[in-house]
C-alpha cells in the first residue's frame, strides 16, 4: 500500500482532482476533490485499502466567489493600468480604457465537506473534499461504510447544516436536541 497506488485508484473512479501534497508542509499526503456523487465510491476505495476514518468536518466558503471576482477585477484593472503606464512611458496616447464587462450574477458560494482518512500501517493521510451549494447542501452519507462516520456526520450537520442523505439518525449530537441553527456558518449570528 502506498500513496501512489491510492492516487491511481482514486483517479480511476473519476475524482475531479487528486493532488499529491507535500506532507511536511501540509500534514496530509493526498488532497482529493470529488463530486458528491463520487464520494461513496471514493470512500469505498479507501475502505478496501484498510484506511480508518479520522474525522469529517466542513468549511463554509461564504464570500469566496465575491472575493475571487474582486481578485479577478483587481487583476484586470492592474493589467489595464500597467498597459496605460507602459503606453504613457512610450509617449503614446493612452488607450481608451475598456469598460469592464458586466459579469452577471455571482455563482453560488459552496459548503465543503472534508473527510480525513489515515492508515494504521503506512503514513498516508488522505483528505477528500466535496463541494455543495450553500442553498442545497446535500452529501451522501458514508456511515454505511464507516459506522464511525455516523457521529462525525451528525456533528457536521450540527455545525454546518450539511444534510447527509441516507444517514439513519441525523439529529443534533453536540447541540441541544431542538437546535435549528448552525453555528459554524459564516453568516451565523447568535
Amino acid at each position: 500500500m502506498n500513496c501512489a497506488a491510492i492516487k491511481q485508484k482514486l483517479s480511476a473512479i473519476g475524482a475531479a482532482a487528486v493532488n499529491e501534497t507535500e506532507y511536511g508542509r501540509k500534514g496530509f499526503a493526498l488532497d482529493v476533490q470529488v463530486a458528491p456523487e463520487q464520494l461513496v465510491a471514493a470512500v469505498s476505495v479507501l475502505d478496501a485499502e484498510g484506511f480508518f476514518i479520522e474525522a469529517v468536518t466542513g468549511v463554509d466558503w461564504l464570500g469566496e466567489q465575491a472575493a475571487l471576482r474582486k481578485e479577478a477585477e483587481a487583476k484586470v484593472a492592474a493589467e489595464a493600468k500597467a498597459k496605460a503606464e507602459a503606453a504613457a512611458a512610450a509617449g503614446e496616447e493612452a488607450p481608451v480604457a475598456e469598460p469592464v464587462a458586466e459579469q452577471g450574477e455571482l455563482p453560488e458560494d459552496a459548503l465543503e465537506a472534508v473527510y480525513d482518512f489515515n492508515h494504521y500501517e503506512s503514513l498516508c493521510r488522505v483528505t477528500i473534499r466535496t463541494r455543495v451549494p450553500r442553498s442545497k447542501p446535500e452529501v451522501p452519507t458514508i456511515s454505511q461504510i464507516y459506522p464511525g462516520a455516523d457521529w462525525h456526520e451528525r456533528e457536521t450537520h450540527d455545525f454546518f447544516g450539511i444534510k447527509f442523505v441516507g444517514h439513519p439518525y441525523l439529529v443534533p449530537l453536540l447541540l441541544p436536541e431542538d437546535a435549528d441553527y448552525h453555528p459554524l456558518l459564516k453568516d451565523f449570528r447568535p
Partner: protein
Amino acid sequence: MSAFAESEAKETFVLNLGPQHPATHGVLRVKLTMDGEYIAEAEPVLGYIHRMHEKMGENRTWAQFLPNTGRMDYLHALAYNHGYVSVVERAAGIEVPERAEYLRVITAELNRVSSHLLWFGAFILDLGGFSPLLYAFDDREHILDLLESVTGSRLTYCYFRFGGVYNDIDDNFVPGTRAFIKRLRERMPMYHNLVTKNIILMKRLQEVGPISAEMCRKYGATGPVCRGSGINFDVRKHEPYSVYPEFDFDVPVYDQCDSMARYMVRMDEIEQSLRIIEQALDKLPEGPVMAEKVPKILKPAKGDYYHAVETARGSFGVRVVSDGTNTPYRLKLRSPTFSNLSLFGEASQGMLLPDALALMGSLDLVIPEIDR
C-alpha cells in the same frame, strides 16, 4: 452473553446513565435500553459540556486560541497545546529551537504519565476499588508540582508558544524529575502486585468488552484502545513529530482486545514515557527556548494544514484553514475520545451493566474533549 442472544427481548426499559452518574466521569449521558441487566442498546448522548471551541477559534487571533486548547483534554493539556502550536508552526513556517522541543517532549510526557495515573485510579474506582485512587493521586501530585514549577499551572496548562515554550526550566526541575522517575519505577511493581494481579480485577477485565481491530478501524479508534486490539499505531512513531524520533521507546501492543489489554497498554506506557523523559533529560541541549523571529501578528499563508499528536487517549488532530489573516478561517479539532466513544454503542451490545461500565472505563473518557 449467550443468555441474552437466545431469549427474545420482549420487555425492555430505558435506563438513563448520567449525565450525573458516578461512572461517567463528568457529564456524559448514556441512554441504555435494558433487558434485565443486559444492555440491548446503548446510545451515548453528548453535548452537556459543549462550548464550541471551533467557533471561538474563528473569533480570536491565532495566539489567543492557545489557552483554549488546555481546556479540552484537561488531563493531557500539554499534548493539546502541542498539537495546536505544531499546526500553526507548520502553517507559518516557524522553526523551533531544539531545547524548546526537548522541553515540550519532557513536559508532555510527564503530563501523559499523570493522565494515565489518574485514569488508573479512576478506572479501579469504577470497578469498586477505592484505595488505588489515592495512591495514584499521591504520585500524580509529584508531577503536578514539577509541572507547576515550569508552566505555572497545575491542570489547564498553556505552556507552549508558537516558536517554543514561554519559560525555561529552573534548577530544581531536572533533579526533581529524575527523583520522580526513580520513585514511580519503585511504585509500579506495587501497583501491579496490588491491583493488576488481583483475581477479582482479572476476572472483571479479562475477555470483557472485546473491541476487534476491524471495529477500531471502522470507528477510527486510536491510542490505547486500538493498541489493546493489536494495532501498532502510535502517532509518535507513525508520523513522528517534534524530537520523538531521537528517543528509543517501544509502543506497547496487546492483541487480546479486552479491557485488560487496554489496561495493560496504559500501564506499560507509563514506563515508556518515563524512558523518553529520562533520555530527554540526558540529551537536553543548551540554548534558547523561543525562536527569535516569530512575528508579533501571525499571518500564516493561505491554505489548510493538518497536524496530529499522540495524546494519552489517542491521535489528536488539528486542521486549520488559513485565509492569510490574523485569525483562523476554520479550525477543526479531531479529538480521539470522540471516535473512541463512538464504538461504545456497538461494543456494549448484549453486555451486562457492570461489564459495560468496565468497558467504558477502559476507554478513558474525558468528556470536555468529546464535546469540545
